[in-house]
């Protein structure tokens, strides 16, 4: 960065350098969030959830012996026809811990999507509510998620099912 860069920059660009609301600025580009979400969904559950439940490996072995298709990654769990609610709750706990920890491995946007995906999947596929949030608050969160351009198709479809479910309740 040289003095010339500042001298030649147009005033509108410079207004951004006068903007002190650093927290309000987007840290990640949409294509980056899309990649991070894809990476997170392909991550084995044990990578992130084992620290929250030491018995996770045994639980997955037990589940995968009994049900098909097997569940290994977050995508396997969230897109499963009959996902176990205890693992959805564990996913929700993990996502929430990411939101409250500044050094968490996930950007806020991704942990938020993961958090609401686990809630919606439990509601839509297991008819089980794993949150104390009311329908209005959930609908607001689903609307936010559906506005994100980087959301993958399968997750978007789940949120839309959630919207339909909440809309009719």
């Amino acid at each position: 960065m040289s003095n010339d860069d500042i001298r030649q920059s147009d005033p509108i660009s410079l207004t951004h350098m006068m903007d002190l609301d650093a927290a309000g600025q987007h840290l990640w580009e949409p294509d980056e969030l899309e990649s991070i979400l894809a990476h997170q969904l392909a991550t084995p559950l044990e990578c992130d959830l084992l620290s929250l439940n030491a018995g996770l490996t045994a639980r997955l072995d037990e589940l995968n012996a009994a049900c098909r298709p097997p569940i290994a990654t977050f995508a396997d769990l969230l897109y499963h026809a009959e996902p176990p609610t205890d693992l959805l709750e564990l996913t929700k706990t993990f996502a929430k811990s990411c939101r409250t920890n500044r050094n968490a491995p996930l950007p806020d946007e991704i942990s938020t999507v993961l958090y609401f995906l686990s809630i919606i999947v439990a509601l839509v596929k297991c008819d089980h509510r794993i949150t104390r949030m009311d329908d209005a608050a959930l609908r607001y969160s689903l609307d936010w998620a559906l506005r994100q351009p980087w959301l993958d198709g399968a997750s978007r479809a789940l949120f839309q099912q959630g919207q339909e479910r909440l809309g009719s309740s």
Partner: protein
Amino acid sequence: MPSFGPADRFPVTQWSLVARAGQDDPELRRKALGELLGRYVPALRAHLVYRKGVAEEKADDLVQEFVADKILEKDLISRADRSLGKLRTFLLTALDRFAANQFRDQQAQKRSPGKGRMVALDERADGLPLGQRPSEAFDVAWARSVIKEALRQMRTECETSDRMQLWGVFECRVVGPTLEGAPAVDYGTLVERFGFRSPTQASNALTTAKRMYARALRCAVGEYAQDEHEVEAEIAELKEILGRAGR
């Protein structure tokens, strides 16, 4: 790998340079004022060139004379009544008066044999970015100087605290894209370049760097503003000026 705790704070003393400029030691006062005014010479010069129609080489001389003779030698700032307004406005008014006096003297000398002419006091728009009005030249140049100083302070802070990765991330994601129109460097590259553990750690570093810059900006303005309230008002006004000039 470095940790990213709360960034070190910049000094928060308001009016630090101007206050030092009011101290009794004349040498210290001259040094502090010279340092402060040196940053805003481009703004004073832009005002003379674009608003007053002074030839560029003459504007340089006039600003130098103004700073050396009027401000430093005659100690204009320590005698100024701060309640009358902001330093920015005060300097502009003083410069206008100084230029007018110089012009009047030159005109008088012109009537004497062997004396040359000096300046014509008319606005001119040539040399200014398209659409920018001559009356805005001073304030826009002032805002540029504030940003330049904030960036300089932030970089120095990163260097002295051995956290150049914060400056690096800020440069790649904010300064380059904003000031040079460069594409934002992706987080994967930042991880490789600066040794972060993960892209998320790089984004956390960016958050820290942005807060650091915000403090540096407040500090740069605080060196000539009277209090916290004036710092915030000045930043908001400069932002508005830049927004208006860019339309």
